[in-house]
């Protein structure tokens, strides 16, 4: 370089580099997640999955991308143009913003906010706004129904998700994702939170709520093909639908990445390079998400809501209490046994409580 660059240009250059990295990583992970999903679900159903385009179907995402781009973009006439147009953009923005906070490797966090975790939760809660715009904007009863269902689901699963993250913050004492990963560095990089009783339970709850948050597999009521065509993105085609599709897959990547960061020790690992550990853990969690999709049938709305409010929420509250006890108790086996005992007892108790749930007889207002 001719002369050294003035320092403010360096700052902007570093910002641009991280932006470019994320802008490249986001869509590419999305493309290859679609391929991974179709291959894995195929293999689970004794078929091969796409292998025509490219060596093992590796160019299939490109083919899908081109198809999505060239598809005609239909806007229904009664649709509200502004909401209909803005919705896909406003769904992809949070999905991409959230990449800034995820620690991909030892020094590889794009923006090390000291409120990183809260940033993640706040930004991922704004997607309800975009879903509202999509469902209300397209003036179609299927998308309205899908929109209502997905917002109800996202709101009711956000509460246990946020509360299940509180024990991690309580133990590490900081909201920054990097500090959380550093706090899991003991025993040569294997002292993950999932090996503590409260960590295991919080991980399960966080992961379930994460799956519900991105409207995937057992919780995919909002876009239930069999019932309401395609939920809130019924009236979208072409590039706009591709944006919805991209947002959903990027959300599933970020949720798995965050679950790995919070409970599986992010990039902490004994021998391999830090970023490899991170991506291995994230892809294992993504595999589990796809595995859910290959196995579980769809939840009914009331089962969905019962699970969130009557089972997961009380469990997280007890979990926070146990994590508090864990924080102050001395580091002995007694602490482990007691907290494990309390948690399994409460799990069993809550399950017993929810067992006898018989839906009350429906009162029909008009039809007798």
């Amino acid at each position, binding site marked *: 370089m001719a002369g050294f660059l003035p320092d403010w240009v360096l700052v902007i250059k570093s910002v641009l580099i991280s932006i470019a990295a994320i802008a490249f990583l986001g869509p590419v992970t999305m493309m290859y997640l679609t391929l991974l999903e179709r291959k894995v679900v195929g293999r689970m159903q004794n078929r091969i999955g796409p292998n025509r385009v490219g060596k093992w179907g590796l160019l299939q995402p490109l083919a899908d991308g081109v198809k999505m781009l060239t598809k005609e973009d239909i806007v229904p006439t009664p649709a509200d143009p502004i909401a209909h147009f803005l919705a896909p953009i406003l769904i992809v923005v949070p999905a991409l913003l959230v990449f800034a906070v995820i620690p991909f490797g030892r020094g590889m966090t794009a923006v090390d906010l000291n409120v990183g975790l809260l940033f993640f939760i706040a930004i991922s809660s704004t997607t*309800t706004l975009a879903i509202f715009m999509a469902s209300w904007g397209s003036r179609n009863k299927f998308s309205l129904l899908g929109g209502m269902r997905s917002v109800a689901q996202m709101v009711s699963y956000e509460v246990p998700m946020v509360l299940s993250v509180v024990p991690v913050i309580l133990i590490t004492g900081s909201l920054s994702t990097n500090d959380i990963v550093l706090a899991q560095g003991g025993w040569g990089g294997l002292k993950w939170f999932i090996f503590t009783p409260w960590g295991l339970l919080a991980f399960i709850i966080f992961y379930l709520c994460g799956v519900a948050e991105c409207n995937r597999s057992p919780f995919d009521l909002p876009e239930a093909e069999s019932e309401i065509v395609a939920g809130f993105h019924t009236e979208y085609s072409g590039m706009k639908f591709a944006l919805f599709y991209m947002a959903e897959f990027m959300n599933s990547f970020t949720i798995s990445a965050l679950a790995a960061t919070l409970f599986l020790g992010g990039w902490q690992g004994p021998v391999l390079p830090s970023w490899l550990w991170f991506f291995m853990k994230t892809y294992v969690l993504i595999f589990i998400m796809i595995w859910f999709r290959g196995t579980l049938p769809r939840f009914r709305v009331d089962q969905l809501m019962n699970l969130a409010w009557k089972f997961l929420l009380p469990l997280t509250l007890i979990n926070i209490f146990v994590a508090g006890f864990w924080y102050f108790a001395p580091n002995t086996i007694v602490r482990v046994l007691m907290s494990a005992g309390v948690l399994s007892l409460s799990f069993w108790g809550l399950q017993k409580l929810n067992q006898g749930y018989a839906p009350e007889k429906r009162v029909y207002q008009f039809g007798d």
Partner: protein
Amino acid sequence: MTHLYDIVKFGIYALMAFSVLAAILAVTVRNLFHAALCFAAVLIGIAGVFLSLHADFLAMVQILIYVGAVMTLVIFAIMLTERFGDNSSPQNNSLTLAAFGLAIVSLIAFSTISVKTRWPIQENAGALHLSVGELAYALLNTYVLPFEVISVLLITTLIGAVIIAKKDRVS
């Protein structure tokens, strides 16, 4: 580094202008759904202003609670009460001119007050960064009473709202 500060400063002023414009739209737009969306834009703008004031925890809480929850409530209410045909009725009543006059007068009054009076500006005014720990310390030590009262208030609001909005059982 001064160029960077200028860029950031210009960004903040642009954000403020954007929020004021969105606020004006939120108040005047005829279609209520668009008004709610503009209001969401104002909220995000204000979260940006909080960030510029180094209050990042508050900015995140603002986004989480306002855009995440309150907006959902407002839009649910709009959806449940909006009949398709009637958003053509004029949204503002006869008070428009009088209210506009009052608005301008009060704007000028407040602005002169805020510019004229010499506020006791601290010397390390913009520099101090507040860590979440200090915030939590303040919230749970010096202000623990309002914290508990707020939680009681929230519970009562929760129950009250459910009772008001509940469909009365057809006996």
